[in-house]
């Protein structure tokens, strides 16, 4: 879609750990500064850090039966530790927002557009 000048997109940014963090020794960006700046720019609508994955519980219903189990739903070394809901003009802007986040270096960020069922 060609964005008309005013329209914006919502992107969910999952903040994850990574087994191979950046080896660059330069100072990490400050997360409080990142939050304050993105909020002021209107690029971040909300966001939260999550409790460790040891506190995660998985819920499923199969054939009417409730199945509750301990831990995250996939065996993975990359854990989701938080999220931010972004509002940006396009993917390039969202990538720039993500690149400035400290976890872009110590972990990884996954940016997914929020589905628009109105289209």
């Amino acid at each position, binding site marked *: *879609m*060609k*964005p*008309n000048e005013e329209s914006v*997109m919502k992107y969910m940014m999952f903040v994850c750990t990574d087994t191979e963090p950046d080896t660059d020794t330069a100072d990490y960006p400050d997360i409080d500064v990142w939050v304050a700046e993105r909020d002021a720019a209107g690029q971040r609508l909300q966001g939260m850090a999550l409790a460790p994955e040891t506190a995660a519980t998985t819920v499923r219903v199969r054939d009417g039966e409730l199945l509750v189990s301990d831990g995250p739903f996939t065996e993975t070394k990359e854990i989701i530790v938080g999220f931010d809901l972004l509002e940006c*003009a*396009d*993917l*390039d802007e969202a*990538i720039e927002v993500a690149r400035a986040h400290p976890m872009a270096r110590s972990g990884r960020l996954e*940016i997914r*557009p929020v589905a628009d069922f109105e289209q």
Partner: protein
Amino acid sequence: MTAPEGRHPADAAVAEAAAEAYARIVAALIRITGDWTLAEDCAQEALAQALSRWPESGVPGNPGGWLMTVARNRALDQIRRASVERRKLRELALLALTAATDGPVAEEDVVDDRLRLIFTCCHPALAMEARVALTLRTICAVPTRDVARAFLVSESAMTRRLTRAKTKIADARIPYRVPSGAALAERLPGVLAVLYLLFTTGYDADGEPAFAAEAIRLARLLAGLMPGEGEPRALLALFLLQHSRRDARRDADGELVPLDRQDRTRWDRAAIAEANGLLRDLRHTGPYVLQARIAACHAAGDADWRTVARLYDRLAALQPNPVVELNRAVAHGYAHGPRAGLAVLAGARAGGALDGYPLALAAEADLTARAGDRARAAGLFREAAARTHSEAERRALLERAAEESRRTEATS
């Protein structure tokens, strides 16, 4: 325009106008409508109409403008039928004016469109293969079945891949824009990498330079659209130099002929001259500038190995990787003797990245032979032969091994 007897001039005119105008039309329609499929369909439709009408009505004075108008009318029809958005209709109506007048201001807009299209097709948020496929399909108008063949997948699989890429562009809203400032410097190497992969895809797929001509055409377009950048121009020069040897690369049996044994009268002199012209007053230094200058040294016939070695030193400093180091070792071997080459090679192998790599073994074997240790060289050639995947290369390496063994016996 004159045409050969019995063949209608309109066919050639369509082909020529298509090569010239296709990317312009697709790029402009995508900018206005945001609909990749609509843009491609309308451009294809215009070509089909030209093929059926021009033989009777004659070739119009401005074939590209004619195609643009037909494609845009088709887009207007389709959008009217979908009965949406006034803004798109208004912009499409304006497009007819720019196609008819070809004025300088309009031209600037259209040129920008093609550059936008290239940067969008090559966006790093798309998978690398999707970037190459989308570039071939959308900018070069290569039929999907031909793109599929180059990637060794079925036509339906390639259609799905292309659809998926276009869906991602729309859903994730990859912008239809040329980045500026620092972002341009970050993104341009990625675009050039796509063109480079496109150039080599043809060679790798079936040994024929299937897409080399398309890659050259795109590099020429990009270099023209970004006159302030040295790297696109250098990439064009590099392509021209590599492609200049296309007729000499293989012998009558289809086997690869190494550079030093090629029949130089079969090199394309005009392409080499054009590349040298492009490089002559290039002030920039980037990886492609250095690679093109190295290729130009080889195209000159008897390479000045000291210059080649110096260029590889700079390339290795700029873009350190094992393959560059290997080539650097070979160049130093010719420029400063086999022992100097072996010393560079030893440094390159320290990281272990070249372990078991047949080209590294072959290079070490050649340097060792020239340093006088022929028995050891024969063993290394045999080891390289055992590891290569190419039958032609294996035969050549075993021949060298036998040759070195014979010489060992003769001198003992």
